[in-house]
C-alpha cells in the first residue's frame, strides 16, 4: 500500500497541475484576455470618455446634454426616438412579409413555388450598402421606376419615390424579412402534422387549430426573430445614410465624430450599446426557455395544392412579380455596372454602356487596391476568428468552469453592437498604446480594420463550431482516449476533422461579412487601407456609378458563391453528425 502511495506522490508537477480543478482557468485565460481586451475594454473606454471630462473629473453632463440639450436642440432625443420607431415598424413589416412567405411556401403548392423558395433568400446575398444602393437606384427620387412612371404619364414631377424614414423601413423590410422567413419556415417544417390531426380528432375546427395549436407553437421563433430584427434595425447605418435620415442613433454618432464632438459620440455610443446589450440579454434569456420544435422525427410536410384555376392563374402572376421584385436589386446593380460613368443623369436607365469597369477592377492598380485590401483584411480577421472560435467552442461545450453564461454573452456582445459602436469603441481603446495592442499605436494603421472585422465576426465561427461540437457525443472523444490517444492526438485526428465542415462554413460566412463590411470601416479606414465598400461609397459620391456597381457585382458574386458552398457543407455535416 505504502509503495503505491509513493507512486502517486512521484507524479510530475505538470501532471498534478493538469489535474487541479483550477487548471481549466489557465486553459481559458487566452480567451478571457481576448474578450477582455477587444470587447470589454473598448466598451469601458468609450463609457469612460462619456463620463469623464478632459480635466479628469466625473460628470454626467454629456448625458444631460443628450436628453436636455442646452442649445434647445432635440436632435439626440429625436434620433433615439426615430431609431426605436424605425426598428419597431421594421419588426412588424418584416414579420408580416417573412411569416406570410413562410406559410405560402411551406404549406401551399402553386406554380412558381420552387423558384420563389430559392429566390426568397436573395436579400441575404446583398451586402448592406449594396441593398440600400439598389433600392435608391430603383425607387429613389431619381430612381428608375419613379422616372419611368413620370415618362409614361408625362408628369412634371416623379409620382412617387422612396425617401426618408419610409425608405429606410422598406429597405429594412427587404433585407431583414429573411430572418423571420427562415425561423418561421423552420418552425412550420418542425410542426408535426399529427398535432393538427390530433386537434381535429378532438373536434377542433380550423380556426381553433390555428389560434390554439399552430400560432402558439410558432411564438418562440417569432419572438426570437423580432428581437433580432429590432437589434439589427437599431444598428442599421447604410439605409439611413442612403436615404438621408440624419436623425438616427448611428447617424448621430457618425456626425458627432466627424464634427469632432468625441465626447458626445461616446455618449451616444454608450446609450446605443446599452439598448443593444439589453436586447441581447433578453434574447438569450428567451432562447433558454422551452421551445417546441422537433419533438418528433421524420415529419412529412403536406402542402395544400392550389386547384382553383382562377387562383392558380393569380398565384402564377404574383409569383412572377415576386421573382422580378426579388431579382431587381441585383439586376439593377448589374445593369449600372456596365454604364459609362457620369453619363446617367436624367434618363430612365443609362444609355451608354461599357465593359471598361470590369477590366479596370483587375488591371488598374488604383481600382484593384480596395479589393486587395478587403481580401487581406478579411482573411486576417477570419484566421483570428477560426482560432478563437474553435478554442472558445471547445471550452464552452467540453470544459467545465464557472462563468460560462457570462462568457457566452460576452462572445455575443460584438454581434449585438452596431458596427458604428464597435468602431467608436476601438478608437477609444486603441488611440494610445496599451497592453492589448501590445504597446503599439493601432488607430490609423492597417491593423485597426482587421481587428474591427475580427470583433464584429467574433460569434460566427464560434457558433458553428459550438453547434457541431454539441452534436458530437463526448463519448467519441472518450473512445479515442480509451484507445490510448492523448488529448491532442484525439483533438487532431477525431474532433477537428469532425468539426471541419462546420468550421469551414462559419469561416466562409465570416469572410463574406468582412468582405462586405462598411459600417465600421467608414470610421476607421485611411487612404491606404480603404476597403471595397468604402470605395463604393466614394465612387458614388463622385458620381462614378458604373465603377461603384462593378465593385458591388463582385461582392455579390463572392457572397453567392460562398453561401452556396457553405450551404452544401452544412447539409453534408448534418447527415454525418446525426449518425
Amino acid at each position, binding site marked *: 500500500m505504502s509503495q503505491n502511495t509513493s507512486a502517486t506522490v512521484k507524479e510530475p508537477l505538470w501532471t498534478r497541475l493538469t489535474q487541479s480543478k483550477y487548471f481549466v482557468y489557465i486553459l481559458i485565460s487566452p480567451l478571457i484576455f481576448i474578450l477582455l481586451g477587444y470587447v470589454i475594454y473598448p466598451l469601458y473606454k468609450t463609457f469612460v470618455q462619456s463620463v469623464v471630462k478632459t480635466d479628469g473629473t466625473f460628470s454626467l453632463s454629456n448625458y444631460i446634454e443628450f436628453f436636455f440639450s442646452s442649445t434647445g436642440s432635440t436632435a439626440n432625443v429625436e434620433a433615439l426616438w426615430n431609431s426605436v420607431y424605425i426598428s419597431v415598424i421594421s419588426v412588424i413589416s418584416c414579420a408580416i412579409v417573412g411569416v406570410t412567405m413562410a406559410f405560402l411556401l411551406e404549406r401551399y403548392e402553386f406554380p412558381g413555388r420552387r423558384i420563389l423558395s430559392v429566390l426568397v433568400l436573395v436579400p441575404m446575398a446583398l451586402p448592406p450598402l449594396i441593398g440600400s444602393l439598389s433600392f435608391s437606384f430603383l425607387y429613389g427620387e431619381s430612381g428608375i421606376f419613379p422616372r419611368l412612371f413620370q415618362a409614361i404619364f408625362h408628369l412634371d414631377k416623379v409620382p412617387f419615390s422612396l425617401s426618408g424614414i419610409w425608405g429606410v423601413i422598406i429597405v429594412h423590410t427587404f433585407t431583414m424579412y429573411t430572418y423571420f422567413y427562415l425561423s418561421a419556415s423552420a418552425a412550420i417544417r418542425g410542426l408535426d402534422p399529427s398535432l393538427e390531426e390530433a386537434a381535429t380528432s378532438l373536434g377542433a375546427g380550423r380556426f381553433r387549430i390555428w389560434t390554439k395549436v399552430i400560432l402558439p407553437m410558432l411564438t418562440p421563433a417569432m419572438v426570437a426573430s423580432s428581437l433580432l430584427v429590432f437589434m439589427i434595425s437599431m444598428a442599421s447605418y447604410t439605409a439611413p445614410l442612403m436615404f438621408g435620415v440624419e436623425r438616427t442613433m448611428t447617424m448621430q454618432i457618425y456626425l458627432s465624430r466627424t464634427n469632432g464632438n468625441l465626447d458626445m459620440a461616446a455618449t451616444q455610443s454608450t446609450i446605443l450599446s446599452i439598448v443593444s446589450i439589453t436586447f441581447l440579454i433578453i434574447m438569450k434569456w428567451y432562447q433558454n426557455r422551452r421551445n417546441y420544435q422537433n419533438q418528433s422525427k421524420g415529419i412529412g410536410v403536406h402542402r395544400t395544392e392550389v386547384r382553383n384555376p382562377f387562383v392558380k392563374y393569380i398565384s402564377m402572376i404574383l409569383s412572377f412579380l415576386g421573382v422580378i421584385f426579388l431579382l431587381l436589386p441585383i439586376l439593377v446593380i448589374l445593369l449600372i455596372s456596365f454604364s459609362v460613368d457620369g453619363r446617367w443623369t436624367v434618363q430612365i436607365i443609362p444609355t451608354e454602356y461599357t465593359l471598361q469597369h470590369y477590366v479596370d477592377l483587375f488591371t488598374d492598380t488604383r481600382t484593384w487596391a480596395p479589393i486587395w485590401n478587403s481580401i487581406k483584411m478579411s482573411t486576417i480577421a477570419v484566421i483570428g476568428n477560426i482560432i478563437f472560435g474553435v478554442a472558445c467552442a471547445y471550452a464552452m461545450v467540453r470544459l467545465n468552469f464557472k462563468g460560462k453564461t457570462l462568457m457566452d454573452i460576452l462572445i455575443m456582445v460584438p454581434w449585438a453592437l452596431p458596427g458604428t459602436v464597435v468602431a467608436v469603441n476601438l478608437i477609444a481603446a486603441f488611440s494610445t498604446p496599451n497592453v492589448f495592442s501590445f504597446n503599439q499605436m493601432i488607430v490609423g494603421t492597417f491593423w485597426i480594420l482587421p481587428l474591427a472585422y475580427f470583433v464584429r465576426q467574433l460569434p460566427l465561427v464560434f457558433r458553428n463550431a459550438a453547434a457541431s461540437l454539441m452534436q458530437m457525443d463526448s463519448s467519441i472523444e472518450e473512445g479515442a*482516449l480509451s484507445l*490510448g*490517444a492523448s*488529448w491532442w*492526438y484525439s483533438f487532431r*485526428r477525431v474532433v477537428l476533422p*469532425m468539426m471541419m465542415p462546420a468550421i469551414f462554413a462559419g469561416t466562409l460566412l465570416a469572410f463574406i461579412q468582412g468582405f462586405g463590411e462598411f459600417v465600421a470601416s467608414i470610421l476607421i479606414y485611411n487612404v491606404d487601407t480603404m476597403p471595397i465598400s468604402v470605395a463604393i461609397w466614394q465612387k458614388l459620391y463622385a458620381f462614378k456609378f458604373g465603377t461603384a456597381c462593378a465593385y458591388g457585382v463582385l461582392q455579390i458574386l463572392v457572397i453567392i458563391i460562398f453561401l452556396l458552398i457553405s450551404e452544401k457543407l452544412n447539409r453534408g455535416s448534418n447527415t454525418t*453528425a446525426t449518425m
Partner: protein
Amino acid sequence: MKSVKLDQVSKRFGKARGVENINIHIKSGEFFTFLGPSGCGKTTTLRMIAGFYYPTEGKIFFDDRDVTLLKPNKRNIGMVFQNYALFPHMTVSENIAFGLEVRKLPKAVIKEKVERAQKLVHLDGYGSRKITELSGGQQQRVALARALVIEPDILLLDEPLSNLDAKLREETRVEIKRLQVELGITTIYVTHDQHEAMALSDRIMVMNEGKVQQIGTPQEIYNRPVNHFVASFIGETNILPAVVKEVSGESVVLEMDTGIRLIALKKNCAPGMELHSGKKVLLSIRPEIIELGEGKNSFEGEIILTEFSGVSINYLVKVGNHDVSVMIINTGSNISQRGDKITLHVPENGIYILEQEV
C-alpha cells in the same frame, strides 16, 4: 490479462453522492457484471475504472499497480460505449486501426492486425465501408473489434447491447461471450438487464442508489438474494410480509397477515439473519415455484387476471389482501378464468426469508 481491484472507492458529484464505498476484486480473465437500475452508479464505477472520472476517495489497482489517477489513455483498456462512439469520418478499418496508430505500430503490422480483428467479428470485406453505411449490429461489432485489436488488459463494456433490437441482442450476446471465453480477457460489463447479466457473467455486482447490494455468481444472486431489492430486481418474485411463529430444528413456521401458515426451511434465509419467534420478516416466493392444487403449505385465492404466454400461464391471484403472481408451465390443461377460486401450494424449499427493512 490483469485483475482489477477497487479499494473503498467513492465518487461524489458536488454534494450529490455518485457511488459509495465500493470494494471489489475482479479476477484475471473473469467476466464481471455491474447490474442495477439506471442511476445506480454502475456507469460511474465503470468510468472510474476507465479513467474518465477520478474517485473522490479510495484507490483502483490493475494487478498491483495503482492506477487511481492514471490518465485513460495510459491504462491500456478496451472500451465499448453504449452508442459505440465510432468515428464517423473514418472507415471501418480506419476506426479499428486508430488505437494501433496511436501505438505507432509499423504499417504492415497494423494492416495485418486490423484484418484479423475484422475476421474475428465477421466483418471481413467491410474495411472500406463508411460507418454510416453499417447497420446497428455491424457498428456494434466494429466497436468491439476496435476495442479488442489493441490487446487491452481489460475490456469494458457499457450497455453495449441496449441499442440493438431484441433478436440481434441475443446473437451479439452470444458473440461477446464467445470472444471473451476465447480470448480469456478480463471483462467488466455494465447493464440494467438482468437476463443479460445472468447469461454472461461469472459474477455479478448488484447496485442500487450508489451502493453495492450483493456480489456473487448468478445462481447465488438469484437463489440467495441478500435483501428485498436484490430479490425483486433479479427475476420476478412475490414479496409477502410474515411473522416467525416457531423455529424448530431445520424448519421455521411463518404466519402471514391473512392467517395462512407456511412452513419453510431455516437455511433459506438471507445471510447473517437471526430467526426467532415473533420476528417480522419478508417472504420472497418466485411465481414459478408455486404449484397448483393441494399440498404442503397450501392456500386459496381468487383469480383476478389470466395471461397466456404460450410457454406458461400467468395468474394474478388475490390471497387475502395481497396480489400473488403465479406461473404455471403450459401442459395443455385447462386454464382458469377471472373470478375462479383456485388452490395453490408452495414447496417448503421455495420460500426464501428476508429481513424486513425499515
